[in-house]
């Protein structure tokens, strides 16, 4: 990779172009591998595709740019505190809308910090839900037979299937 490169261009799965700084791209192992690849040398104009849709990629890049300075240089406690607050604001999103996409993107891009954050956010949103709300969100069918439901109710009084 040429040392003069400060930002790289990638394509989303929808075909849109995105710029991401080199230091931010380092938060993801696969992106880091791409950096070391010939694709970004000056005499190459092939733009790599990231298998993440545009709407999600915007958020992922936003996260990377915010976290890159700290990840690359370390930071004081007050910075960490500020970043924590930023994470909470950043994660205020609808599960149905984008959180699951972020989870999959973070998993695919090997971004541990974002993956942890997204898992915890999903768990916090789910914890108060009813069983049927959970089934709806995860596209799960109730596969207990009526005998099995009865058995589970006997074992755990108060157990609800709705």
């Amino acid at each position: 990779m040429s040392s003069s490169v400060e930002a790289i261009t990638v394509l989303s799965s929808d075909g849109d172009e995105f710029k991401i700084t080199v230091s931010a791209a380092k938060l993801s192992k696969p992106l880091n591998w791409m950096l070391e690849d010939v694709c970004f040398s000056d005499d190459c104009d092939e733009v790599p595709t990231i298998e993440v849709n545009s709407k999600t990629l915007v958020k992922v890049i936003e996260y990377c740019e915010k976290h890159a300075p700290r990840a690359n240089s370390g930071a004081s406690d007050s910075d960490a505190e500020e970043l924590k607050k930023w994470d909470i604001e950043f994660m205020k999103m609808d599960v149905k809308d984008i959180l699951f996409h972020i989870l999959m993107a973070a998993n695919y891009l090997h971004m541990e910090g974002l993956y942890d954050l997204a898992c915890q956010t999903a768990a916090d949103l789910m914890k108060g839900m009813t069983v049927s709300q959970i089934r709806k969100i995860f596209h799960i069918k109730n596969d207990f037979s009526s005998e099995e439901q009865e058995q589970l109710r006997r074992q755990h009084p108060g157990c609800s299937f709705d």
Partner: protein
Amino acid sequence: MARGGERPFLHFEIIINILERLPVKSILRFRSVCKDWNNLFKTQSFIAEHARHSAHESPFLPFHPYNYSYKRPYNRPSLRLLNQQMETAEVLSLPWKLSFNNGWRIIGSCNGLLCVQDFRFGLLCLWNPVTREVREIPPITNNHRCLFISGFGFSSIVNDYKMVAFSYLQKNMEGLNYDVCLVHVYSLSTDSWKELEFGAVRKKEIIKETVSVDGTMAWTWIGYDNSFDVLVTFDIVTEVFTSTPIPSAVRVTTLGAYQNKFVLSGHHRESHFMDIWVIEQVASDSGKHFSCSEKYRVEMPWYVSNILCIWGNEIVCCEKERTGLGDKWKFHLKLFNLTTKKWKDFLSISSSHECCDGVSYGGSLVSLFNPQVQ
């Protein structure tokens, strides 16, 4: 990867990673979602990962009515869990199997399991308050001495929970001979007791407190006849006792665990300071030993008289206030935060009927009948 705006189906692996971060209560509710989830929640790997995530959460401080039953014999004993926001997070009634109407105590707490003992009959049980599982521990056979169960701990190396029981000789009706005459250890994996060698604890005096971290149980032993207080530790894997002297200038009042290390705290004699030591485990040629590594000196508010226990990042102290004639007392709890080094008012308890056994508790899914945590 899914494309477009429609909500994707998540891989089961990702769903598992989300579920591991849920509170125990939600997990128990979600076992009726589908068979896959119900089965998942019973697997050792899920229970262990879940425990690892909830280890970062602040533990509860359990309180229970003390010897309540003489007045209300049919009142089922209960356990009150306080959270760090000074609220009662939950009041749990003890399962009927634990109908400890004559008073009881919590001997130890680890991985969401409580080791509890009935005062009157000495019945010993393990209890997971969240899953409501109870397991009775068999009595030690052929033991005619006075028994004092005094330690409960877990080791992730051998994946086993153990209890230690010290027996004393009863010399006459008036009292005990404080010399330990027998030591037994119970292992949950074999569900049996066995007698142990106890070199380091022979001729030691009254056991004051017990606490455990992963792999080690510890007690403070109060010396008499001018002998010094010592910290006695028990290696859960090798089943060997070690004894470490405690600096003599301080009267130790509390032994606790903080960030998986033992912590001693105590009043400095004749002053209003509290000293805090962090006990570090050191490996040496002759095996493991312990030493006091860090020390803080903290000025205590003049009215605080008693150090109760260490709870997460806080040292719980207690201030006693007489509220009327006779035996009417009010207790005010104060917290000292080990990270911020600041005092905070916590809670007032109106009578002496509530009792705190000085343990911290965090809920888990750990099963008493298949208890390995890896």
